[in-house]
């Protein structure tokens, strides 16, 4: 993982969020409060605009700065969660390095752990974690097996798709949909959708490059 990659990923993510407006927005309207798309758009735009400020910074600094910026621009439930993700990722990248795929997978795993800690949720609660936890497992497993980046990218996209789809038939026990009981069934989770979109975007960059 290198700064240039993170920066082009942040541009691509902003574009991908905007491209998925209709779906992200309607998911949070259906079982949430309808602000998730707008928040993601505002925050991803903000991150994309940090290009010049981050250009020549080391990876861990870049990740941490992204986390801090998310903390102060995203808001809502996803704000502290995504912020914690990037800050923890930066911390691990600094401590353990970030050159190899395995190091990157470890940083990703640390990010997901930070979300779990902050939000006190786990798998199967109909949140973004239903995409992120399996993705982290896939990433770490394949990186440990020394699989090539493109194979890992394909596998991550598939895991993200499955994770997103798994939220459909869940009852939510965390977040705004938690009051809904059975009524949440049949709807995908908005945060899980954003994560799936972002994972796809980053993986597509890897596949293209």
């Amino acid at each position, binding site marked *: 993982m290198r700064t240039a990659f993170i920066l082009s990923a942040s541009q691509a993510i902003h574009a991908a969020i905007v491209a998925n407006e209709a779906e992200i*927005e309607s998911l949070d*309207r*259906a*079982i*949430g*409060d*309808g*602000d998730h*798309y*707008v*928040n993601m758009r*505002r925050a991803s735009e903000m991150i994309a605009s940090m290009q010049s400020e981050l250009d020549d910074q080391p990876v861990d600094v870049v990740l941490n700065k992204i986390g801090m910026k998310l*903390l*102060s*621009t*995203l*808001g*809502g*439930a*996803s*704000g*502290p*969660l995504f*912020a914690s993700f990037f800050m923890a990722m930066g911390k691990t990248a600094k401590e353990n390095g970030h050159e190899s795929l395995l190091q990157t997978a470890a940083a990703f795993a640390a990010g997901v752990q930070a979300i779990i800690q*902050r*939000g*006190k949720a786990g798998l199967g609660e109909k949140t973004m974690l239903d995409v992120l936890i399996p993705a982290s497992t896939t990433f770490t497993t394949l990186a440990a097996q020394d699989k090539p980046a493109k194979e890992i990218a394909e596998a991550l996209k598939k895991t993200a798709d499955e994770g997103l789809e798994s939220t459909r038939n869940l*009852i*939510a*026990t*965390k*977040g*705004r*949909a*938690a*009051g*809904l*009981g059975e*009524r949440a069934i049949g709807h995908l989770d908005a945060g899980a959708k954003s994560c799936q979109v972002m994972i796809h975007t980053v993986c597509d960059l890897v596949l293209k490059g």
Partner: protein
Amino acid sequence: MKKFLNKVDNMLVESLSGFGTAHADLVSVNFEPTFVTRKNKAKNKVVLISGGGSGHEPLHAGYVGKGMLDAACPGQVFTSPTPDQMLAVAEATHADKGVLFIVKNYAGDVMNFEMAAEMLPFEHATVLTSDDCAVINSTYTTGRRGVAGTVIVEKCVGSLAETGADLQTCKALGDKINQRTASIGVALTSCTVPANGKPTFDISETELEMGVGIHGEPGRRREAMREADAIVGDMVAAIVADFTAKNLPLKGEILLLVNGLGATPLMELYLIYNTAAKLLGAHGCQIARSLVGNYTTAIDMAGASITVCLLDEEIKQHWDSEVHTPALRWGC
């Protein structure tokens, strides 16, 4: 969607600027980060800070002032504010008696305030409000939502803080009031988040949403539209059941708050109040205090919530004390 706005991204700033100008005698509005502070704050008191997504006006900024909040952090519409806002406002307002955050129990609000609290370099505590009894099965949820009952917490803890009480005493009163308060809302129409431009949910002419949240989150059930007496009857029954479940039988003196969600005429709110007061009276309550109007809204939703707070002498005294904020004023 038709709304009075220019660019939707500027809506909050323009509205808060107007709020600041209209109430320049009471509050100051700061941007980057966004917060509202009280002018003429008494020294040497616990600092009361609340905040949450915008769209619930007058909550919270409208309750900044003498005898209530010292500051509020408005987030984007329906989006919790961010920790930098809370840190900056705490820095700007605190004295030596610590900071009390009053936070409605939503994952986003809780986490953002939590992160701020973790970074705060001085004494602090948090009251989490969770008066909404709409969500029946608590195994489904991380906890109940904080809704209009939050106004009662802010008013009474604000009054107590004004007397110089310490942080733990203030927190204790807030927790007690939250425990003795239950609310439930009903929507006839959806709200529309300005940035979305369309209603959060679809609802037909013959339906209502029982137990709706103040962000348009779905409630207990989609039900058939019916007479006000029947709707209010179900709402009051839910509140009574909630007190029973808490082992706090609802009798004696209460405060009855009938709250409009944004687009409900006052005439209908008083009609709801009329039925609720009769039912609660028949149940054995004395309605010792009342509040009817738009106090915790869901943007432009047609709907209403009923909040009952089981009073005691302490709560009553703090409810009655002087308050002077943009949205609540009495005694001075």
